[in-house]
């Protein structure tokens, strides 16, 4: 049985995640007038059409591009020593402290409550066509998986092989992988909720909705 109270307390001790802001590619970096401790916004607008706060400009081949905040939060650190310098790809230029929203807390707790089916190897994952169709129409929770069900397609090195699900029967409560993105080995692919656990899961959600206060 899941001890929601203590788990929640644990998260409350550290109600944020520190996200590393990295350069998407090489180029000369130039910081905006943002400082450590400043608040930043993520993409907003009804259609997320307004990008998040500008953190820096990276210029490559005479083509300047903004690096926007992808989450709201507070700038914890900015490596201004790189200002106006050439940087390589994937270099950390700052740290963003993002305070967890209700959805994120629920997601963390669910990862502990659900049965997780993990990636057997680093590859790109897709749902098998039949499941995919159903999910696209009525969402992942419409699917009950059973042991031995052919649920995924694993794609790597331009080859695709089917992958069967092993584990308890239940509905797919959460999907953790994204289309066309590599999943590392042992990362969770889906979270399964066995029918007898459904009550616990609902409890988690209502507890968080009641108790969690979002910061900023």
């Amino acid at each position, binding site marked *: 049985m899941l001890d929601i109270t203590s788990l929640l307390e644990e998260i409350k001790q550290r109600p944020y995640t520190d996200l590393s802001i990295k350069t998407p590619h090489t180029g000369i970096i130039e910081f905006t007038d943002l400082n450590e401790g400043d608040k930043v916004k993520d993409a907003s607008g*009804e*259609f997320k059409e307004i990008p998040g706060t500008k953190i820096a400009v990276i210029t490559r081949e*005479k*083509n300047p591009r903004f690096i926007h905040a992808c989450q709201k939060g507070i700038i914890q650190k900015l490596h201004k020593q790189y200002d106006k310098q050439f940087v390589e790809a994937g270099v950390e230029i700052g740290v963003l402290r993002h305070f967890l929203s209700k959805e994120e807390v629920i997601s963390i707790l669910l990862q502990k409550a659900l049965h997780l089916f993990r990636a057997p190897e680093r590859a790109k994952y897709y749902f098998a066509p039949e499941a995919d169709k159903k999910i696209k129409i009525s969402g992942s929770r419409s699917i009950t998986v059973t042991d031995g069900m052919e649920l995924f397609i694993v794609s790597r090195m331009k080859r695709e092989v089917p992958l069967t699900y092993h584990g308890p029967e239940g509905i797919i409560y959460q999907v953790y992988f994204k289309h066309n993105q590599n999943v590392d080995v042992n990362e969770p692919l889906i979270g399964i909720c066995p029918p007898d656990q459904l009550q616990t899961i609902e409890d988690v959600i209502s507890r968080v909705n009641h108790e969690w206060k979002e910061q900023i």
Partner: protein
Amino acid sequence: MDLAKKTQQLNDRLNYIKDIFAGKHQDDITLLESRLNEFKDNAAENVEEAVATLDDLFGFMEKKLEAKLTPMDKVRIVRHPQRICLKDILENVYDNYTEIGGQDEHTNDPAVLIARAYITRRYGKKTYNQSVMVIGHEKGHGEEFRNGGSAKPWGNAKALHYMHVAETEGIPVHTYIFTPGGDPVEDYPGAGQQIAKNIYEMAGLSVPVVALISEGGSGGAEAFGLADKRLMLSHGYYSVISPEGAAAIEGRLKRGERASAELTEQCAKNLHLTAQDNLSFGYIDKIIQEPLLGARPYHYDFFRTLRQEIIRATDEIMLEANGFSLFNFSKLRRLQDPETNLDETYVRWHIKRKRRSDLIEQRQNKFMRMSRKTYINRQSILGALSDTWAEQWREVYNRLVYDFYHHQRKHYRRLWEEIEGEWLSIKQKTAKPFKDAYNKVRRIDPAAEEELTTLSKWDDESSRNSAWKWVSPKAKEDRAVTCPNSAVHGCVDLWAPDLYNEFAGVCTNCGHHFKMEYQWFMHNCFDENSIYEFNNEWEAGNPLKFPTLDERLKEAREKTKLKSGCITYEARIDGIKCVVAILAAPFRGGSVGAAEGAKLISAIDRARRKRYPLIIYSHGTAGIRIQEGTHGVIQMPRVTIAIRRYMRAGGLYLVLYDTNSFGGPVASFLGCAHYQFAMRSSNLGFAGPAVIKNTTGIDVPPDHHNCYKALSRGHIQGVWDRRDTRTNLKQALLTMGGRNLYYR
């Protein structure tokens, strides 16, 4: 007399004055207010007298303030919830009516009201009920669901439907324009597209149309406005854009910001949107005088005047269209006498069948005569004269060649084709046994073998990998360019010299089309050295003397080396001659004013006279050039009429949209084309996202105006890849053309 009621009335009058002057003339208003309060507080002994005095005072003040009305005040009058609305007119001007376009909110578009109504006239001992189709915007007196009189596309479609009903029934149409503009949210078939259809159809409606303008806001007004007689209320406005909209553009405001009151007031003045202005321009036929500070529902005298004017206008059209017999002439004389009570005269509201085309032609000519002197022609007199001569000669030549010669020739050719076909089938039948025998003996031709293994001749080898004839100057810069879809499709940055030259501005990964100059289309899609430009001496002017427009035009001329936003030329595609007009985005946003309208009309007429297909390429247009006011708006019906004449004469008209095309042009001569295509990644629609946000408060998705959305809505017929433009144009001319088209 009911004292409370009278007090309430005076109170309304005071509030009305406060509203329309928006904080101006405070002294006068305070005076009125204090007098009214005194009257309310101290129940006077002689109530009747006190009321009369107060009434007089209000009357005096209203007269005084009437003289000080500014254009912006008139805009506020027109928008005031106390202003007369179409329902008031139906109640008071007509003798009976039935709403047929729905009732109140129970209709597909409550902003558009349709009614069958009649006017009763007595002449001698006889009584005549004269039926009309009443179509108009209904703002209501502040009802939310009326959407302020902004018609949705289906509202305009409904109006058009009943215009056709009136046509079937042979009754006149009275349209009432009470709209701040069309509703800009795109929906089937496109907000602008439906307005374009209305204009196009009204240009050929075979029954008389009388239009009355109270609030004539741009495109929305034009959807009902192409009429034989256009009347306007003295306190109304007729404009290309709302003063706030103009102020937002002039003040270069961002989304959500509001223009200052002074700037708005200034813009209202500069737009010359009043009835008096429009009468002097010749865009309306008559002004109907309203009571002081504008007509309100209790001004019963005014409705009587309005009734007389509506009858007079309708009578006049009938008499003019039916031809001037001596009998009609005397009737017309009587009509024009303001003393005549038209309720006691009679003119039959019917147009003889054979006269209907004259009616249409008269209406079209009326519009074609408008706004002639509102642009600058830098051409020499001699050049102009020779052009006119050439035009006349063309007309005669074409009559001879196409109407006479081709007609006869077709006849003989058909006969010959039949004989030839018969002969061939006989020949094949008799030759078959010999041929079969010959084919059975298989032999290898040494020449054929050589053909398989040695170099063959290839005539147009050079056409392979051929470079674009015109290359954008952007291709000269050594820099990388990011595709806007890179986040979604993972497009790698493109190198400008590749992108803007070989790739024709198309992202090789996702197919996004970057903006290209209009020259790309002009020089890469037609046969080499086949372009002949004409009317390039016609120059955009400043007919309203709009402040700073002269400087801005000068700047545009220097920057673009163009004299107007429209380029017209003749060219060939694979030998097929055609007339092309370009709306060039770099010249003041590709906006259309009087000069552009005149150039378009001239190009359309040229295509008609020469029997060439017509292509309009909207490289980008922001709409009607607002600084030209109604001189710009009037180009919508004018150019559409020219298009209608061209298409009715059998011409093939193609429209191609690129980059961003919005506003009046889309809602008229572009939108009315049967064949509209858009370049990939282009946006088109009635009003841009910022305007939609400002007027309706709605946030539209970023792809709301995307060409694929327009295609799904049914606005356009296809989306083209820029690299295939020439092939597609050729294909379009072949498949949509045919024997009946001019170029054949």
